């Protein structure tokens, strides 16, 4: 009974906790702000300097840095327990769901007053906005999905690392060759912790499909689209006909990054800006790394699934804290995208602490503002830029399609077992499996 009791207690204790900012004894508005855990002392000092600068410009606000980094497994508990900082970041995937459930504060009024409020990229802004365009969470970074590849394995397989595959047929052929020549997985895929659904959706988009259709307030699930079937059949062929997908079919984001950096995977699909994590967390050798644009097939409807990061404010924050929080979001997260001094200071600090500067990302505002910022920070860029050109040369030309907006993570979770079946069961009936998921996904969308 011990485990049940622990789970029951964990669930219930969350309800009893409380959080949110307050007012200090000297009448200042106290705001808990997020600080990445595990930073080098230099980065912490730089963060504290920004905090001091903000407090000096806003003497009625007292900022309290708290360690926080979004993690799927701990975010739920922090959110439910009210232990999140007042200002925290979440991926685009969660934005609409948090807004629908009113689990973050409505800061649309304060955001609308920012000078650049109307300049956010339209597609990017959607992730943090309600259906009627009110921005509850502020986009601070954006990226599209890309094909990451190991240049060393390409070379060992007799392939040209400067000419990564540009079609799905080429991906299949190269994966087979890598597996045959090196014994490593030519192509690998995430399948666990909702990432299987995430990547399956990415592939469906690339094949011209979508997983939901919105008609006013009604959402129709289309996870069983012919494009999704085609995408999974392509994966199945690599797995069972070519045996080019290695031996691990339970990857999630952390473990696939680990194996990729360790040279055990030739190619995989993930966020275009993933190099920063690969370097910081998995000691990726720069010379091994390559990234290419995700091949799009299936006509005009094919697109790249977009993603990114949103800054949000705790639902429990009172009005003064909300106002102060938006000021901090503006000062800390967005100033480095909009003003030269902040951009340079941020890039210098990041580079000095050994982290990647210049990983591919998409504009939060317009392309001109993005290009201008890149010229400001050019001297601090420390990533293998040339090896990223197969992606960066094309990333602005590829149509970016936002993630599905309704019950996104839950539908991804439903797709995980389908992807796992395709990779572990030679006889997996893809249309049949997707048909089963379709019913459950529609039930989730209807429940909204």
């Amino acid at each position, binding site marked *: *009974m011990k*485990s*049940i009791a622990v*789970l029951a*207690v964990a669930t219930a204790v969350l309800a009893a906790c409380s959080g949110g900012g307050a007012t200090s004894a000297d009448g200042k508005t106290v705001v808990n702000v997020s600080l990445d855990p595990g930073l080098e002392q230099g980065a912490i000092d730089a963060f504290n300097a920004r905090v001091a600068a903000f407090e000096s410009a806003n003497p009625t606000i007292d900022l309290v840095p708290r360690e926080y980094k979004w993690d799927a*497994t701990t975010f*739920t508990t922090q959110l439910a327990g009210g232990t999140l900082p007042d200002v925290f970041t979440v991926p685009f995937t969660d934005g609409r769901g948090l807004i629908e459930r009113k689990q973050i504060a409505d800061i649309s009024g304060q955001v609308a007053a920012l000078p650049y409020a109307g300049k956010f990229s339209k597609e990017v802004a959607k992730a943090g906005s309600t259906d009627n365009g009110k921005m509850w969470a502020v986009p601070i970074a954006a990226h599209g999905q890309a094909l990451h590849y190991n240049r060393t394995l390409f070379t060992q397989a007799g392939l040209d690392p400067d000419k990564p595959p540009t079609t799905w047929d080429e991906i299949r052929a190269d994966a087979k060759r890598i597996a045959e020549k090196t014994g490593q997985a030519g192509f690998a895929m995430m399948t*666990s912790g909702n990432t299987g659904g995430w990547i399956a959706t990415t592939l469906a988009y690339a094949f011209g499909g979508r997983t939901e259709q919105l008609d006013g307030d009604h959402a129709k699930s289309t996870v069983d689209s012919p494009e999704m079937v085609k995408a999974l059949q392509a994966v199945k062929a690599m797995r069972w006909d070519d045996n080019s997908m290695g031996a691990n079919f*339970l990857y999630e984001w952390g473990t696939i990054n680990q194996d990729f950096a360790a040279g055990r995977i030739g190619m995989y699909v993930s966020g275009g800006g993933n190099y920063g994590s690969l370097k910081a967390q998995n000691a990726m050798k720069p010379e091994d790394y390559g990234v290419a644009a995700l091949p799009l097939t299936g006509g005009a409807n094919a697109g790249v699934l977009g993603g990114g990061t949103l800054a949000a404010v705790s639902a429990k924050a009172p009005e003064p804290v909300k106002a102060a929080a938006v000021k901090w979001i503006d000062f800390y997260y967005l100033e480095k995208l909009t003003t030269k001094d902040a951009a340079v200071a941020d890039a210098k600090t990041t580079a000095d602490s050994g982290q990647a500067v210049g990983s591919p990302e998409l504009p939060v505002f317009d392309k001109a503002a993005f290009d201008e910022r890149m010229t400001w920070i050019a001297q601090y860029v420390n990533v293998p830029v040339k090896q990223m050109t197969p992606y960066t040369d094309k990333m602005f030309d590829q149509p970016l399609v936002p993630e599905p907006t309704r019950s996104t993570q839950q539908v991804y979770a439903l797709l995980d077992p389908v992807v*796992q079946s395709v990779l572990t069961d030679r006889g997996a009936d893809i249309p049949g499996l997707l048909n089963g998921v379709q019913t459950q996904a529609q039930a989730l969308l209807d429940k909204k």
Partner: protein
Amino acid sequence: MTAPPTVDRRPAPVVPPPAPVKRRVRRVRGGGLGTVVFLLPMLVVFGLFSWAPIVQSVVMSFQETNLVTAPTFVGLDNFRAVLADPLLWTAVRNTLWFAVLALLLGYPIPLVAAVLMSEVRRFKGLYSTLAYLPVVIPPVVAVLLWKFFYDASPTGVFNTLLGSVGLGPVPWLQDASTAMVSLVIEATWAAAGGTVIIYLAALTGVPPELYEAAEIDGASVWGKVWHVTIPRLRGVLLITFILQIVGTAQVFLEPFLFTGGGPANSTTTILLLIYNYAFANSLGGDYGSATALSLMLAVVLGVLSAVYFRLTRSWSAS
């Protein structure tokens, strides 16, 4: 009609006034104020951190809540939703399959090991230490180690060993047909040491003259085990049997860390399903369904425990 008042006609006993110390002791033993004062810290801690959350969980099982906005009572909807979830029956099947495999592997191995170790004359302590060592290793560390061993490629640790005798490679965790067996093998390795120690302790209680008598009667080693050891251990065997069933019904750590319930839900157990209801969705899970299923599992395990107490009582009496 009312019963006539009962009147005690016995003469009142003459009781000398007790000494103050004795009175205090009696007050404590008799459950007076002193007892309450002594119990209070424990009651507060137990009530606050154990019973209050449990009661709150029961309440939550009848609510729809994301723990941020105000909850709404939904009657039995959460129970209906859980019972209608096709994954529930997959999880029940998987949990039973784990329990069967754990009994087949995990039940006899410690017994055989304990009997063999009790027969050993030299280095007894060394064998006991080796048997118990896996219990000392933190479970998460053990699972991560075994995950490495279970690498399904031909160069994986276990597959390399199997390959040296012309077997394999085995997909281990990467195939629905072998994943659960792989989990049980590790779970048996991790837990057997504790059970071995219990059996070893029980074996010391078997009178040596019984073995001598059996030997005089010409009993083989197997005969001695079957006719002397097992009957003398039957109480302990029953307890470990029931505890194993209760423990396996709550298996969580292995599927959570090894496979996350995959491949294709082949290792999703009841407790993992509860966890997934509550915590797998980063937007805040379905806490109502999670607590509803927890409650149902608690009831089933409560019934099992009642059966266990009843059985052990009759065994003890026989």
